[in-house]
C-alpha cells in the first residue's frame, strides 16, 4: 500500500537516509525503531512531503507522492501526527480539529468525524472550547491524534506519540493506536519506546544511522538478541 523505495535524503550536504526501503500493507501496524538521530522522523517527514528525497520514490497505492506538493498529500489519505504534537496552541480544541479536515472529502464530513473523535476521546469533548496550549500533555497528544484522524486517512503515521507522557498515559496511547487499526486504518509508527511498540506492531524495521539494518515481525524482534541488547536494555 505505502511503499518507500531506495530513498536518499539530505539536509543540505549531509546525507541522512541511505537507500531506505520498506513497505506497509493495508491494515498493518508497522514500526520504525532506532536510536536518536537514526533518521526515523526524517523518514516520516519525507513521506509527508516536508522533505524531498534526492533519489528514490514514495508511492501510495502505486501513486507517487514524492513529486506532489505537501499540502496535497492529505487529500490522498495520508495523515502525519508529528513529533512533539505541533498543535496550534493558540487555537481551541475544536479549531485544531477543524484544521485536520480542511481538504477534500474530509471537509464535507467534518461534523460526523468530529463526533467520532470526541467519542474516541471524551476528554477532548469536555474541553472543546479550551485553548489547546492549556491542555495537559496526554490531552495534547490525544488532540494531535484526533486532528490526524479528522482528515479521514487511509494511512496514519505517528511520530513518537508517547514522548514525554506519564507511563499510565503511554499505555493508553498504545491502546488507542490499536483501536485505530481495528477501525480499518493502516498505521506507521516511529517510537523510542521499543518494547511497547514491538508488542503492538505486526512488523518492524530497524533504522541505524540512516540505513535499514533489520526487518521482521514485531514479536520476533522482541526476542532478537541484537534488538534486546541495543534497544531493550536486556
Amino acid at each position: 500500500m505505502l511503499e518507500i523505495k531506495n530513498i536518499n535524503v539530505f539536509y543540505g550536504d549531509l546525507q541522512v537516509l541511505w537507500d531506505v526501503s520498506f513497505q506497509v500493507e493495508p491494515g498493518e501496524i508497522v514500526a520504525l525503531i532506532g536510536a536518536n538521530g537514526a533518521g526515523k522522523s526524517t523518514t516520516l517527514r519525507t513521506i509527508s512531503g516536508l522533505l524531498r528525497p534526492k533519489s528514490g520514490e514514495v508511492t501510495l497505492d502505486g501513486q507517487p507522492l514524492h513529486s506532489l506538493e505537501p499540502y496535497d498529500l492529505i487529500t490522498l489519505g495520508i495523515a502525519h501526527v508529528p513529533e512533539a504534537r505541533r498543535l496550534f496552541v493558540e487555537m481551541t480544541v475544536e479549531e485544531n480539529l477543524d484544521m485536520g479536515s480542511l481538504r477534500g472529502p474530509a471537509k464535507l464530513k467534518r461534523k460526523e468525524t468530529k463526533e467520532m473523535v470526541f467519542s474516541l476521546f471524551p476528554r477532548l469533548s469536555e474541553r472543546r472550547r479550551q485553548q489547546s496550549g492549556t491542555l495537559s500533555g496526554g490531552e495534547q497528544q490525544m488532540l494531535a491524534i484526533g486532528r490526524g484522524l479528522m482528515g479521514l486517512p487511509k494511512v496514519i503515521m505517528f511520530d513518537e506519540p508517547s514522548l514525554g507522557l506519564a507511563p499510565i498515559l503511554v499505555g493508553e496511547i498504545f491502546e488507542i493506536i490499536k483501536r485505530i487499526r481495528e477501525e480499518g486504518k493502516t498505521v506507521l509508527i516511529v517510537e523510542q519506546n521499543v518494547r511497547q511498540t514491538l508488542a503492538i506492531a505486526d512488523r518492524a524495521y530497524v533504522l541505524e544511522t540512516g540505513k535499514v539494518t533489520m526487518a521482521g515481525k514485531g514479536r520476533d524482534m522482541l526476542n532478537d538478541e541484537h534488538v534486546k541488547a541495543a534497544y531493550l536494555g536486556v
Partner: protein
Amino acid sequence: MWVQAEVFLQTLVSGLLLGGLYALIGIGMTLILGVMKIINLTHGQLMMVAMYLAFWLFTLFGIDPYLSLLIVPPLMFAFGMGIQKFLVNPVLRVESILPHNQVILTVGIGMVLQNLATLFFTSDYRSIPVGYASTVWYLTDLWRDSPVELSFSLPWVVSFMLAVVITLMLWFFLAKTDTGKSIRATAQDRDAAMLMGVHVGWMRVITFGLGSALVAAAGCLFIPIYYLFPALGSQFTLIAFVITILGGLGSTIGAILGGLLLGVFESMTATYVGMGWAPAGRFVVFVAALVFLPGGVASLLKRRKLGK
C-alpha cells in the same frame, strides 16, 4: 474642577477615536508579521498610496472617501498580493548572509512608493474638502443635563465606527472561516499547517493582501480628517511599528489595545505637554514598552489566561 474633568474626558475621547484608526493600521502589520515573521516596513507607504487613490477618486469622480472603502481596499489587496508574490517570495528563496533581507526589501518598496508619489503628485499637502468635515456633535444635544460638555467631530466618529466594523469583519474571517483559520495556523506553526493541507505560500500572498487592504481601509478613514503628502507613509510605518511592539508581536488583540493605548497617550501628550510633543510621546511609549513590557500587551493577556 468640572473644566479640568471636561478637558481630560475630551482628550480621552479624541485619543480613543484616533486609537481606533491606529488599531486598524496595527492589525494589518501584525497579521503580516505573524504569518511572514517579518516587519513590513512599507506599511505606512501602502496607506499613503491608498490615500492618494481615495483622493483622486474624490477629485476626479467625486466619490466620497467613505464610499471609496468599497474600491480602494480591494485594489490594495491585489497590490499587496502582487508585492508578496513577485517581490517578497523570490527573496524568501534566496539564501543570504542577511537573515531578514525581506525586511530590507520592504524598506526599498516603501522608498520607491514614496518617491513615485512625490514625482507624480508633488510633495504638496492635500486634503479632501468634504462637506461634513467640520460638523460637530455636542454631548448636551443628546443629554441636556450633562455636567460636562464634550464635542464629537462627525468624521472622526464615523471613521472610528467604520474601523470597529472592519475589525469585527476581520475577526469573523479569522475565527470562523477555513481560510482565516489557515492563516492563523500558518502563523502559529508553518510545518504543522502544511501537514494539514494548508497551501502556505498562498496564505502568505493572501495575508500580505489582507494587511494591505486593512491599512488601505485605514487610509480611506483618515483622509476626511487628515491631510495627505508623500512622506506621510514613513510616519505611519513608524506608528504601525510602535503599535505592533506595544501590542506584542503578532497578536491581533494586542494590536487593537496597543493602537488604542497609543492614541490615548498621544492625545494626552498633546493636551498636557504641548501640541508638538505627540510624536515624542509616541517614542516614550515605544521605549517604555521595549524596556518594561517586552512581550507587549499580549503577554499580559497570556499571563492572565494561564493564571501565572
